[in-house]
């Protein structure tokens, strides 16, 4: 019978934010905290820019066509976190204005194949890195 541990919060002993887990194959270990996605969001820019669903994101800001600012609920530990931004068919996207990439927020742009900014319905974001 599988053992089940019921608990509301996990903390490391040596360091509260550092728990080691074993790999699927048993050959390695790695940090639990660092491997977790720290924020994700689906949002739309059609008609109005609005959050569809999210985790650890607060407000969303429409800066113009295809141009969106994303604000975290809980800040990242540094401004070198990793952003994955994907959109729907026939568009491409990524960071814009990297000077505005901070521990609290970042900015993305969506473009068509002619490099013209566009508003699309389906936009997806994943954030990896260390929380503050």
């Amino acid at each position, binding site marked *: 019978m599988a053992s089940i541990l019921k608990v509301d919060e996990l903390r490391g*002993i040596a360091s509260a934010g550092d728990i080691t*887990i074993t790999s699927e194959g048993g050959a390695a270990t790695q940090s639990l905290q660092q*491997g977790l996605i720290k924020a994700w969001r689906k949002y739309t820019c059609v008609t109005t820019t609005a959050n569809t669903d999210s985790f650890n994101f607060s407000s969303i800001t429409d800066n113009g066509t295809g141009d969106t600012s994303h604000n975290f609920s809980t800040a990242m530990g540094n401004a070198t976190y990793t952003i994955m931004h994907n959109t729907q068919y026939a568009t491409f996207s*990524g960071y*814009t204005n990297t000077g505005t990439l901070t521990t609290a927020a970042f900015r993305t742009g969506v473009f068509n194949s002619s490099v013209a900014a566009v508003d699309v319905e389906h936009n997806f974001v994943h954030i990896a*890195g260390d929380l503050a």
Partner: protein
Amino acid sequence: MPSVLNVDTLVAANGTDPVTLTKQSAAKIFERHNASHSLDSSFGVSSITDEGVGQTTVTYLNALSSATQIISGSAGNNDTNECVITTTAAVANTTTTHYYAVADSGGSYRDRAVNATLVHGDLA
């Protein structure tokens, strides 16, 4: 009052296997590097190799159990000429590496200020 469990290592009841919480769902590797191919941040990465303009090989700290890893990526710059990231059949991924290229809308490879990939899959 919420219960708090203080622990340094989590394993399954047999003492070796991963627990359900972390099995498969946690990211195993991520990296972000700049236009000079210097790492800004990373996790589970041993090194990155500059394979030419816009092209990078990422070498892992720990091997994956198979070369069927799931890779997502994004890239960008200070201007609005954004790029896409693609893997290529010409350079096969292995259990310890993945290759990717950053290209503009015309298909030309570009070195960008921010380039990032994220990998999911099983570790060996």
